[in-house]
C-alpha cells in the first residue's frame, strides 16, 4: 500500500465506491440478460467494474481488510453517487444507466492517466482499455434498439427516469480541490462534466431521442459534494444483499 494524502484517499474512495456499486448492480443481471450473448457481455462488464473497484480499494485499504471494507461499512460511510447506486429493475433502465455511467467513467479514468500517485496512472491506462469496450457496447446497443419504435419509447421513458440523477456521477469527492492541486487527478469533476454533458447531448440529438430539454440542459449541473454522504432510498436493501454471504461468518478467510 502506498502513502496517500487524505485528499487522495477521499478521491479514490468515491471512485472505488462508484465502481463497486455499479459493478454489483450490473451483476444483478447475471442469467437475466435479454439474450445469452448479451448476458455474458453485460456480466463481463460488471466484473470489469468490480475489478476496478478492487484495484482502487487496494491502493488505500490494507490487504486482508478489503472485503469487510467494501461490504460491511455502515451505509453512511460509503461515498458512491446516486447514479451508481440506482436500482434499475428493467433492462431499459439498466441499459440507459450503463450508457450514461460508462461514458462518464471513461472520462474519469482519462483524468487519472497523468496522476502523480504511484501506480494510479498505469491502472488508469489499463482501465481505459476496458472502458473503450464498455462505452462501445452501450452506445452500439442503444443505437440499435432505438430503431424499433416500441423500444425507442421505452428508452425515452428510461431516460426520463435516469437523467435526473445522471449528473450525480460528477459529484466532487470530498477535498477534490486539494486532490487536483496535489496532482492526484489532472481535471476537476466540473470540467469533466462539461465534456460529458456535451457528448451525451450530441448523442441524444444524433439518435433523435426525445428528452425534456431541461433535463438535457442540466446534465453538467453538479450536486454539492455533501450528497456523496447520503445514500439513495433503496440502498439499505441493496447493502444487505451485498453483505449477505460475508455476514454468515465475517471471520472466515476466503
Amino acid at each position, binding site marked *: 500500500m502506498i502513502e496517500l494524502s487524505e485528499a487522495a484517499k477521499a478521491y479514490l474512495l468515491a471512485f472505488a465506491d462508484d465502481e463497486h456499486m455499479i459493478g454489483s448492480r450490473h451483476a444483478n443481471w447475471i442469467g437475466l440478460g435479454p439474450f445469452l450473448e448479451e448476458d455474458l457481455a453485460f456480466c463481463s462488464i460488471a466484473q470489469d467494474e468490480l475489478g476496478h473497484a478492487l484495484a482502487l480499494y487496494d491502493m488505500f485499504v490494507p490487504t486482508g481488510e478489503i472485503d469487510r471494507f467494501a461490504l460491511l461499512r455502515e451505509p453512511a460511510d460509503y461515498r458512491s453517487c446516486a447514479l451508481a447506486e440506482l436500482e434499475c429493475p428493467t433492462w431499459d433502465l439498466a441499459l440507459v444507466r450503463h450508457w450514461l455511467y460508462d461514458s462518464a467513467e471513461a472520462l474519469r479514468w482519462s483524468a487519472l492517466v497523468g496522476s502523480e500517485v504511484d501506480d494510479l496512472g498505469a491502472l488508469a491506462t489499463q482501465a481505459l482499455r476496458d472502458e473503450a*469496450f464498455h462505452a462501445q457496447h452501450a452506445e452500439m446497443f442503444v443505437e440499435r434498439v432505438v430503431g424499433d419504435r416500441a423500444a425507442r419509447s421505452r428508452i425515452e421513458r428510461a431516460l426520463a427516469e435516469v437523467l435526473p440523477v445522471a449528473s450525480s456521477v460528477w459529484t466532487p469527492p470530498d477535498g477534490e480541490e486539494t486532490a487536483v492541486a496535489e496532482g492526484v487527478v489532472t481535471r476537476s469533476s466540473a470540467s469533466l462534466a462539461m465534456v460529458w454533458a456535451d457528448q451525451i447531448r450530441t448523442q441524444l440529438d444524433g439518435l433523435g431521442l426525445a428528452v425534456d430539454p431541461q433535463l438535457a440542459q442540466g446534465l453538467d449541473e453538479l450536486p454539492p459534494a455533501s450528497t456523496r454522504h447520503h445514500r439513495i432510498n433503496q440502498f439499505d436493501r441493496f447493502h444487505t444483499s451485498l453483505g449477505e454471504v460475508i455476514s454468515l461468518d465475517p471471520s472466515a478467510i476466503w
Partner: protein
Amino acid sequence: MRTYEVFLKRPGKDEFRHAGSLQAVDSEMAKILARDSYCRRGEGDQMWLVDRTHIVEVDPDLLATTVDLPHRNNDGSAVAARRKRLREQAS
C-alpha cells in the same frame, strides 16, 4: 437476429478453429458480443466471424458417393501384401 460462426486462432502456427456460434443483430454488434462469449480469457488473438447465411453448404449426397469407392482409399496394404507374396515366391 443473425447467427455468426466464430473461428479463433491461438498465437503461433495453429490454424483457425471453429469455436462456436452466436446471435447478434449485425456484424458490428457481433464483434462486441463475440469478445465476451468466446475470448474473455485470451483463448485466441485472432477471430473470424462468418454470417451463417454466407456459408456454402455441400449436399451430403454429393459427399456420400466417395464412401463406395474403396480403391480411392488405398492405404498401401494391398501393394505391401503383393510385394511380400512376390518376395516369398522368389526366395
